[in-house]
């Protein structure tokens, strides 16, 4: 029983990472209706910027804020420069553009900051949260920040004019445009916000997995998985999905003997596919209804 509890808590801790990433994934999905494969690399690049700022002697929280601002601007710029010209291109071309972005950011980060593993400071300290040492203070802080972001996002989308405009632009671009919403800029804003949330996720994850250009590849995958399990239309569902994926992954690795460490990922993904087959729009997502 103690082992079980321990594994669930450890799963919650890693789940916090995935939940962060899943939230960013859902954000951009809301704005552009696609999964963004470059999301992980964008977060990684932002984290490198934060690392550089800290290296230059900025205090942590100043670097934190500056990175969020820079990431937001960069996200908007990416949308305006890279994706706007592809506005009318088929979906497949968009996905290829994401892959291109991924390659560019990954290679550029490796070129600027090289591939050695760097440690990243935690604002919450590294010690255990309670005496038993089941969960570290950083893990708890990370989960706290994720939940805080979720609440802020909820308030933003529910109770501000611009949040409403963004939802309208994503749900029905034509009608939104007729109602006077600048749909193109709403999309760019969505990219900016996704980049900013991604940068927060990156800065929270980096103390755990260490900073290097390939740090996000598997985390993004789990983030996708969490987002899809929870439902791509629901930010809250995505966070819960992220936690679920973390817990499932840990329990599968512990209790299914053949799985071991190296096949954890496959098992988690199989479970996700199984969930999707039963409930195609995710656990908390709205089923998509289209008019014929």
């Amino acid at each position: 029983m103690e082992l079980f509890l321990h594994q669930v808590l450890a799963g919650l801790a890693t789940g916090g990472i995935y939940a962060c990433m899943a939230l960013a994934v859902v954000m951009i999905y809301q704005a552009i209706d696609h999964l963004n494969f470059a999301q992980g690399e964008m977060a990684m690049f932002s984290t490198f910027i934060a690392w550089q700022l800290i290296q230059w002697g900025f205090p942590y929280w100043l670097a934190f804020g500056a990175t969020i601002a820079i990431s937001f601007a960069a996200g908007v710029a990416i949308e305006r420069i890279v994706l706007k010209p592809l506005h009318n291109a088929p979906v497949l071309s968009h996905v290829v553009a994401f892959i291109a972005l991924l390659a560019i950011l990954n290679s550029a980060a490796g070129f600027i900051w090289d591939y050695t593993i760097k440690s990243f400071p935690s604002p919450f300290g590294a010690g255990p949260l309670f005496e038993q040492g089941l969960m570290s203070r950083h893990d708890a802080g990370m989960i706290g920040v994720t939940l805080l972001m979720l609440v802020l996002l909820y308030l933003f989308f529910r109770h501000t004019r611009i949040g409403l405009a963004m939802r309208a632009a994503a749900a029905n671009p034509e009608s939104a445009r007729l109602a006077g919403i600048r749909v193109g800029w709403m999309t760019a804003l969505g990219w900016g916000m996704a980049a900013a949330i991604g940068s927060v996720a990156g800065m929270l994850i980096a103390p755990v997995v260490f900073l290097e250009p390939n740090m996000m590849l598997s985390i993004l995958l789990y983030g996708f998985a969490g987002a899809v399990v929870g439902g791509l239309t629901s930010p809250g569902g995505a966070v819960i999905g992220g936690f679920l994926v973390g817990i499932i992954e840990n329990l599968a690795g512990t209790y299914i003997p053949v799985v071991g460490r190296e096949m954890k990922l496959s098992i988690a993904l199989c479970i996700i596919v199984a969930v999707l087959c039963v409930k195609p729009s995710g656990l908390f997502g709205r089923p998509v209804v289209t008019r014929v």
Partner: protein
Amino acid sequence: MLRRTVETHEPQAETVAGMAVPAWRLIMFVLGIIVLATIPFVLKNFFIFQITLALIYAIAILGLSLLTGFNGQFSLGHSAFYAIGAYTAAIMMDGFDINYVWTLPAAALVCFVFGFLFGLPALRLEGVYLALATFALAIAIPQVLKSSLVEHWTGGVQGISIIKPDAPFGLPLNSDQWLYVFTVLVAIVMYICAHNLVRSRTGRALIAIRDQPIAASAMGINVSLYKSLTFGVSALYTGVAGALGAIAISFVAPDSFTFQLAVALFVGLVVGGAASISGTLFGGLFVLFVPNIAETFSKGLAGAVYGVILLLVIYLMPTGAAGLVRLITGKLVRQGR
């Protein structure tokens, strides 16, 4: 559409520079065959090997094209079928001493069954969800190949080495040249089959399912059956390519079939033109050569250069190479009037 019916009111063949479009197609086809036939006698061995690989990728992309381009089902997991084909060939040749020629139909059969079975749950998924499920498949396969359960067969992380076949019947070709000829022959058969499939009643059903699934089922098309069969056929193509790839490289290991391969195939599909049979040849060449070209610009920034090239290609040809060709012939046809 309307304008078109007006234009073709009086029957008149579409012509470019005074020759009908089908005639041009035939000329291009014959030219292509001539180029393919001269390659082994004029180029160096390494280059022949590279062209062989490009053709193999093209076959794999053709499989993906049938699924994504013609049937509208997303897949980011075709590296899995490629791997299964490659391992089928390698295990048959290494473990059972079976002639390499027979590994191709075996790989085709195994991959068809596997693809068909994967296609059944995939029926419930669409768009990004299907992309994620296939993505999961691509991630899982290398791990499964490495796992201790199947290590006895797959050789675990080390993989399997096989012997490169020599030319049969005492043909005066070295093994690279023979493999090239063999691949070309297989590719021609595969391309003709795909061409006929897409032009057939079945092919029209696939396209109808892609464009209007509900209307298609109202017309009496069994959507589920066709979709999972397409998954099977698509896997078959990619599996045969995988088997050819294993024979050509004469080595298989789990880490050659990672998610990167699936992405490469997907990129090849899009730059070639999603619903285009001949475009896949361009895709195969792109997948093989562009990363190398990017590396010649700058070693450290190779990935970035590759990304920029990719973006430029997408900007210049949003509908792929095939789309660009179609655009140009369309312009020429209109000028000819």
